[in-house]
């Protein structure tokens, strides 16, 4: 059923302000993500290379709070940026309102779950669960050796 609004009723402003912040967020986070992700790819894939990525590599990186903040910022900014982009696409292509609501709620639930999971992983990371990490000189203090 298509319902037509009463003619000449003023356009609803509800949600318009929220949409403006979303629009601005995509641009602001986009600029930050360009730096964060290009840097992430340069160091991990270009300098070190995919074969060098191991648990010990992550432990070495996260021994420095700088990289924990870098990766945490990437996690939050990218997941919210990506989820909001998917929401735009869902709003463009869904016809039924129920389906639109279902997909958007699913997107944000998944986004929240991954942001919480990732944040917990970064903040509670323990390099000492790997015995070989003890041999890395700069991490030895953390593991009580």
């Amino acid at each position: 059923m298509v319902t037509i609004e009463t003619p000449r009723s003023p356009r609803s402003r509800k949600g318009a302000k929220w949409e403006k912040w979303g629009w601005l967020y995509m641009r602001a986070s986009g600029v930050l993500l360009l730096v964060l992700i290009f840097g992430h790819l340069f160091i991990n894939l270009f300098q070190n290379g995919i074969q060098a990525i191991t648990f010990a590599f992550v432990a070495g990186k996260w021994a420095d709070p700088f990289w924990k903040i870098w990766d945490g910022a990437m996690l939050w900014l990218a997941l919210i940026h990506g989820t909001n982009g998917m929401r735009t696409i869902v709003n463009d292509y869904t016809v039924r309102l129920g389906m639109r609501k279902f997909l958007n709620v699913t997107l944000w639930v998944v986004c929240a779950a991954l942001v919480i999971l990732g944040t917990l992983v970064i903040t509670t990371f323990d390099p000492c669960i790997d015995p070989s990490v003890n041999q890395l000189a700069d991490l030895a203090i953390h593991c009580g050796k």
Partner: protein
Amino acid sequence: MAKLPAGTLYRGKVGMWSWVLHRITGVAIFFFLLVHTLDTALVRVSPEAYDAVINTYKTPIIGIGELGLVAAILFHGLNGIRVILIDFWRKGAKYQNVMFWIVIVLAALLFIGFAPRHLAHVFHWNA
């Protein structure tokens, strides 16, 4: 034969195709991001679990797939700057067409710089 619609600045031109590419690359990057958050979370489980899953990223097929991922990220990121310039720069809309080709050239140059080194890593050519 039906005549193609003319006189629109947008349809079938650079403006439309850059928008299409931005969407497709965005969706692809989004789904990778979901997987990548989960595989990285394995560092909290055990070194063996993390290394086992990350090792799949080092196989030839996935290694070549990473080239596609990086290409998508290069385009999406640089075209995002173009979108911002169209929105905020006074002459942005006027130069959107040439800016698209600048995005393509910059992305291609960065990709050419990245691809041989990445393939060398994947296939152990520099060992």
